[in-house]
């Protein structure tokens, strides 16, 4: 079905690339890990830093002109107008008064965080799989991603099966896996339609069958978690432990979201109905491309976040006009709205450009900045740590030559957890 649609489309190239990359790509603790650099091996005393910046886009309030950011222990200690902040002794002062500062970008859908082991495709649903064992911190692709401003990614299994496994939220900077992991399991990956479609001869080759398979698996998980919840409340006997279903616990307890490879009106309808309404999961629409924006009001009503793309525009056949997908969602009232690259489908470092194109098709610049930072943080439920420049949050800061949405500007320095991980003065400009 998807192939047919693609063939009809003017912009089939990107879509087919998605399909090819994700299917062919053989590249790339029971309790939830919320690592925060407790690693003794790599944990060094981080320098205290004061950065003077021409303009700070905090992603939460108004921009701050001529501002100062203080960084201590990898966190933002203070932020505000330069006049109001006194830099204490012992701080390394960096002058970027000609530059802009903004929060590090967050990619809600990426496959380049580690080795290429994306799809384990023997079974259609694989809730037992996890991908954070395959993390390669600061790998060559991530180094370029940093130069494009990406400091956090949602590194997930591919969409070769209906349930690819559990993914991880991680920083792009250097360190051991436990240094870069923000949360593991970070998200569950579900793929509805398109890539995971199977040949005849197997159950679940069409949309009806696929959704049957997904639903059965979720029902099994839901029952398991319910049994444990009842046991923990003292209302039932201890259920039998099942490692295969363990990561369903944070999912059904709504501590982590499910990112859903879903696109087209009809498929998103089933996403809403099954994953949100019936299963009561924290759903994130990843992709949401083609004509799916037309169901936007249904998503908005439920507060479901949309991380649109990487296909950012679509020929609307009714209007006979190319339409920017992101802005169409905006018009329909999606609050938590962002973009993604599905890297390597679109190179990770071009995340900002996804927002740029959305702005070209009518999205506001202010919303676009948020859509690259705080909105994906909210969607992925990590906005307590990243996504905006606020006191107490991780010091993931970009220094740019101007608004990141203008492709003529570029990133000159990147801080992750308060450490400078990229500096065009020292490193060659990578992107």
């Amino acid at each position, binding site marked *: 079905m998807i192939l047919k649609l693609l063939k009809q489309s003017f912009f089939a190239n990107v879509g087919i690339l998605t399909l090819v990359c994700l299917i062919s790509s053989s590249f790339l*603790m*029971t309790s939830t890990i919320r690592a925060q650099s407790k690693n003794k091996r790599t944990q060094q005393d981080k320098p205290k830093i004061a950065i003077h910046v021409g303009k700070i886009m905090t992603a939460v309030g108004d921009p701050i002109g001529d501002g100062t950011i203080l960084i201590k222990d990898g966190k933002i200690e203070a932020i505000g107008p330069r006049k109001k902040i006194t830099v204490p002794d012992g701080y390394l002062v960096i002058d970027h008064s000609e530059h802009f500062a903004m929060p590090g970008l967050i990619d809600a859908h990426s496959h380049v965080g580690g*080795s290429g082991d994306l799809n384990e495709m*023997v079974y259609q649903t694989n809730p037992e*799989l996890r991908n954070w*064992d*395959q993390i390669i911190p600061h790998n060559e692709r991530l180094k370029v991603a940093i130069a494009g401003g990406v400091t956090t990614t949602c590194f997930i299994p591919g969409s070769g099966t209906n349930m690819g496994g559990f993914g991880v939220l991680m920083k792009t900077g250097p360190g*051991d896996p436990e240094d870069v992991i923000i949360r593991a399991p970070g998200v569950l990956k579900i793929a509805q339609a398109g890539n995971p479609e199977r040949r005849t001869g197997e159950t679940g080759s069409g949309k009806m069958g696929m959704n049957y398979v997904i639903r059965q698996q979720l029902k099994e998980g839901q029952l398991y978690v319910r049994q444990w919840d009842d046991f923990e409340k003292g209302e039932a006997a201890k259920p039998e432990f099942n490692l*295969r279903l363990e990561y369903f616990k944070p999912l059904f307890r709504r501590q982590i979201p499910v990112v859903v490879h879903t696109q087209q009106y009809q498929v998103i309808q089933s996403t809403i109905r099954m994953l949100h309404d019936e299963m009561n999961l924290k759903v994130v629409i990843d992709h949401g491309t083609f004509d799916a924006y037309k169901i936007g009001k249904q998503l908005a009503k439920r507060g479901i976040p949309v991380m649109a793309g990487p296909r950012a525009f679509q020929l609307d056949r009714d209007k006979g006009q190319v339409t920017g997908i992101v802005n169409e969602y905006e018009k329909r009232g999606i609050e938590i709205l962002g973009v993604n690259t599905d890297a390597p489908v679109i190179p990770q470092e071009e995340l900002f450009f996804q927002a740029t194109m959305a702005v070209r098709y009518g999205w506001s610049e202010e919303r676009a900045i948020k859509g690259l930072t705080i909105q994906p943080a909210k969607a992925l439920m990590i906005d307590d740590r990243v996504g905006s420049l606020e006191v107490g949050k991780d010091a993931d800061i970009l220094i740019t030559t101007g608004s990141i949405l203008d492709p003529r500007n570029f990133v000159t320095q990147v801080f992750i957890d308060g450490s400078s991980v990229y500096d065009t003065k020292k490193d060659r400009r990578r992107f």
Partner: protein
Amino acid sequence: MEQLCLRSKNMKRLIIQFTTAGLIFFLLAAPQLAHAEDSILISADTVYTMNGKTLSPGQVLVVDGKIKAVGKTVSAADSSTQEIKLGPGSVLMPGLVDPYSQTGLGDDGTDERTEEITPNFKAIHSVDWEKSALRRQRENGTTTMCVSPGRQNVFGGITAIIKTYDAGNPILNEDGALIASMCSDPTASNRSRSRPDTIFVRQPTNRMGVVWMLRSTFDKVNRASAGESEFPEIKQVLTGKRPLMIYARMSHDITTVETLANTFKLSPIIVGGHEAYKVKEMLAERKYPVILDRIDTRATTGAEQSKLCWNQAAVLDQAGVTFALCGNDLLDQARFVHRHGLSREKTLAAITATPAKLLGVQDKVGMIKPKLDADLIAFSGDPLDLTSRIQWVMVNGQVLAHSKSITETNEKNNDAKLGGDSVKTKEGN
């Protein structure tokens, strides 16, 4: 000859000749057959004992297939003691210990193809001491070898520690470590979404699957009581009663081994380790020993696109990681790592005493010290010098000459350097 046989006079002469020859043969061969009375005193310019000291010159007395005495000068056991005086510049060192190899296993495959989890399969049942590849390793100095099931299974089976020569009792430990794989090798022949009527449509088809099978198997066995466990071998690993060797090349796979070790309280020995240098601090901190597999220096990357580091052994040594070399042709590998910065002492240890210790057979092999097996190599010069030749290899007190394939062109030279015509050799032909 035909003529001689026809004439009785000549026949008589022939019988005498044969009898004499037989007598001489008996005299020469008898001590060899009656192995227990054998004693040999070997003198060399340098003796690397690998027991903390190097003797120069040195003597080693071998009695009954064991090392009896080592020193600057050692007195012979009795008048029947045979003496081997190695020439000028000669070096005597312990036989090499290869801690991970498939050489020595039969040619009919080292991996079980129908299943992924075969911890109860034992390498010992496939060892072929007559295999020419094994003989070749022996002639190149390897006297002890840990033969292991291959890497195509997530849990491959049980290793065996053997002598490379069958001198009567060539098995040091037939019930060695459990070998597992944390690499993409088990995925090699598995397929997904193809015809479902083949056994190869099965997990794992990538690393996520490998990790899952390791995790779930360890977990299942962990939760089962000792008696009812499906895989007693894995239970023994989990209770610290059996060593675990786990093959991992890439740095992230080695990190995964650490994760698994944390979860299941394992003390793994990492085999492969092509990218161990990237996680050297962790390896040193956790005290995980590494058995470094040989690297192919002709390619820019190793298997699984691992990024090779030619001086990795020296780097690991500096970081304080314990390691040994493995995977055949240990002498070549030792010369390579020495050339790339590892000290002489550490290099020689990495092919003798260290692997012996990792395999738990340090009381039998890996050093020249009293009571250990008399497994020795006689070199014409410095073992780490490419121009030095192995003159002979001794296993359990028996001097083994080279097969013709290696020595043909140099036979005369070799004989002269053996240290006297009286040296008896097995398999001299």
